């Protein structure tokens, strides 16, 4: 048999990039520098219709100037773009669809723009590819969603295009690597152009153009929680979590989701955790943004290491002064590479714990609401049992041993299970129920015409639910019927909880599948804010010995 190769050119991408560079040449000044005023013209020169374009938008750092400029290109020249980006936060991220510059979207998370995405989908202004997790989207950058042009943000650049992303590195390395090594074009907006960088985070030959933006890039202090707003109910759930899960399984490596529930836990470690004698036994290694509420636990010697997805405004000096704990470069500032942090969060930790909005009787958990296409960012990467894991640890093995289906599904092989814990209040503010018979994700899938329901954590991955009523230890359940009964048993007076059979709940308590605060030996009258190691932001500053410098909106003294 004779094989015949095809005849084609094998370097069309490179030639196309060179042609685009030629179009852009008039705007380039010294080295790789382009003036801010020429940025719109630069974008029109290097972007072609139907390109895949990435605007760096993380959940913290934003390439906001480049996003604004992309909105100003002529839709007659640049149209039908396919936006591939992790986070849509700024109005401009959606304006490009309104103006007909972009058509298709693949994303992870959208926060404030979630309502507009749903609206644009219904109006046909936007075509949605998929809502990914962060790692999944980064993965696709290297498969079928490689950006042709990437618009990224860095703290500083030099004339050769070397970038310093420093404390807020986040997604930049993943985006630039995918784009540049497939002959794409990388444009960076920077706060400052300097002669010498503190360190090089992205080599200059991976970057095509550098623009000094008129204002420093926008950054949101997304992970700062004021201890003054933590409620007694959150203190109660935090005490239950520490005693009933952290202590019970001796969880040493973990991620905390965003929110007041986990902020409460961080502030209970030096008080309640200490009282239980758990120091050194739990919470040693975190995959976590530099949460200000973690300061007291660090200062009292609980924490050995913290690797961060991104930075957090005001924590720069504190982190730099604690280089034994955080990942800090030779220049003295932290590096936060989200792709590595997400990888660690997926494979290398024993527990994910975070809040949610809704849980159904099967244990599926979601923050999706009927009219907002928001996505979940990185939560599902950590809130799942990583099937590729092959190292063992105490907490992981214990959870695997408790898994009632282990011999049925695993045979004689010893395996473990990631702890995936959801903190939920039976009713939240405005009495919105935390437990529902059908997740709003179903209505959203219908409204936004999605092929699958956007579920944050799948029921079969969820191992524990903590409500003020009790903890449900789901792996101990032998079948779905028992699992549903366990969930109903801690769902309080929600529609899900009302269907609980008190006899069955009692039986599950006897089996240790449900544990109430009393079963755990927790005195509810002690669950109040006086248990917290810091009562307000000022206390955190004091704990940090003045190194934490909170943003103005958190200063009320």
């Amino acid at each position, binding site marked *: 048999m004779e094989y015949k190769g095809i005849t084609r050119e094998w370097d069309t991408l490179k030639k196309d990039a060179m042609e685009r560079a030629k179009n852009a040449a008039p705007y380039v000044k010294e080295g790789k520098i382009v003036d801010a005023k020429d940025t719109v013209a630069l974008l029109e020169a290097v972007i072609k219709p139907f390109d895949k374009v990435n605007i760096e938008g993380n959940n913290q750092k934003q390439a906001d100037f480049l996003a604004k400029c992309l909105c100003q290109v002529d839709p007659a020249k640049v149209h039908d773009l396919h936006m591939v980006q992790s986070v849509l936060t700024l109005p401009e991220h959606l304006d490009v669809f309104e103006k007909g510059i972009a058509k298709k979207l693949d994303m992870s998370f959208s926060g404030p723009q979630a309502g507009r995405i749903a609206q644009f989908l219904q109006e046909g202004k936007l075509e949605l590819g998929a809502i990914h997790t962060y790692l999944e989207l980064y993965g696709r950058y290297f498969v079928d969603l490689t950006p042709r042009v990437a618009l990224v943000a860095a703290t500083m650049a030099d004339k050769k295009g070397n970038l310093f992303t420093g404390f807020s590195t986040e997604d930049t390395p993943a985006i630039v690597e995918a784009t540049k090594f497939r002959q794409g074009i990388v444009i960076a907006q920077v706060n400052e152009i300097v002669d010498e960088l503190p360190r090089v985070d992205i080599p200059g030959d991976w970057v095509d153009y550098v623009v000094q933006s008129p204002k420093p890039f926008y950054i949101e202090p997304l992970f700062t929680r004021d201890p003054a707003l933590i*409620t*007694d*109910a959150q203190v*109660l759930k935090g005490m239950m979590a520490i005693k009933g899960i952290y202590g019970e399984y001796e969880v040493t490596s973990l991620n905390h989701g965003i929110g007041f529930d986990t902020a409460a836990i961080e502030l209970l470690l030096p008080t309640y955790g200490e009282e239980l004698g758990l120091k050194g036994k739990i919470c040693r290694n975190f995959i976590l943004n530099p949460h200000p509420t973690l300061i007291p636990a660090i200062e009292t010697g609980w924490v050995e290491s913290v690797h961060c997805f991104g930075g957090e405004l005001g924590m720069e000096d504190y982190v730099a002064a604690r280089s034994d704990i955080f990942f800090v470069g030779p220049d003295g500032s932290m590096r936060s590479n989200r792709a590595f942090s997400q990888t660690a969060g997926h494979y290398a930790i024993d527990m994910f714990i975070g809040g949610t909005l809704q849980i159904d009787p099967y244990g599926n958990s979601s923050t999706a609401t009927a009219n907002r296409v928001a996505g979940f960012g990185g939560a599902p990467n950590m809130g799942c049992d990583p099937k590729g894991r092959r190292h063992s640890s105490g907490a992981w093995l214990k959870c695997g041993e408790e898994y009632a289906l282990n011999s049925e599904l695993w045979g004689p092989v010893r395996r473990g299970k990631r702890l995936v814990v959801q903190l939920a*209040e*039976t*009713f*939240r*503010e*405005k*009495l919105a129920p935390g437990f529902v018979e059908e997740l709003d994700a179903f209505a959203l899938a219908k409204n936004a015409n999605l092929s699958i329901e956007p579920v944050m954590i799948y029921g079969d991955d969820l191992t524990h639910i903590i409500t*003020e009523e009790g903890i449900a230890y789901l792996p101990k359940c032998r079948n779905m019927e028992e699992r549903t009964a366990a969930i109903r048993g801690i769902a*309080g*007076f929600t529609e899900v909880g009302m269907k609980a059979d008190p006899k069955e709940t009692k039986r599950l308590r006897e089996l240790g599948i449900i544990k109430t605060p009393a079963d755990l030996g927790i005195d*509810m*009258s002690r*669950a*109040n804010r006086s248990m917290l190691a810091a009562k307000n932001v000022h206390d955190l500053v004091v704990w940090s010995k003045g190194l934490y410098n909170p943003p103005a909106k958190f200063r009320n003294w």
Partner: protein
Amino acid sequence: MALQVLEFEFKSEATQTIAKEWSHLGVTGSGDLEVLFEKKDLGGNVKAKVVTPVKGFDAVWEKMIEKFVNDTGVGNISIEINDDNATPIVVYMRLRQALAEATAKEAE
């Protein structure tokens, strides 16, 4: 917003009552509530009056207070609650705290 007044009465095993004739805990602030306990001879029963702006949760109020009565066995008290959108757990915690306070006073 119009306030609603809900009134309930529960049978209790009345294994305990409060020491003080009258006690008070909490503040009617957003997401919170105040609880007033008054010792009364109700043949062991517990009476409760709830003033709340929240509509449609009468059954939840009833069940939550009933749970408190069953869990603690408290009897012969009249409870008055002035609520501003507290969640059930806050209600339950405040009731427990109010009871702890009203019984702790006994030692004084």
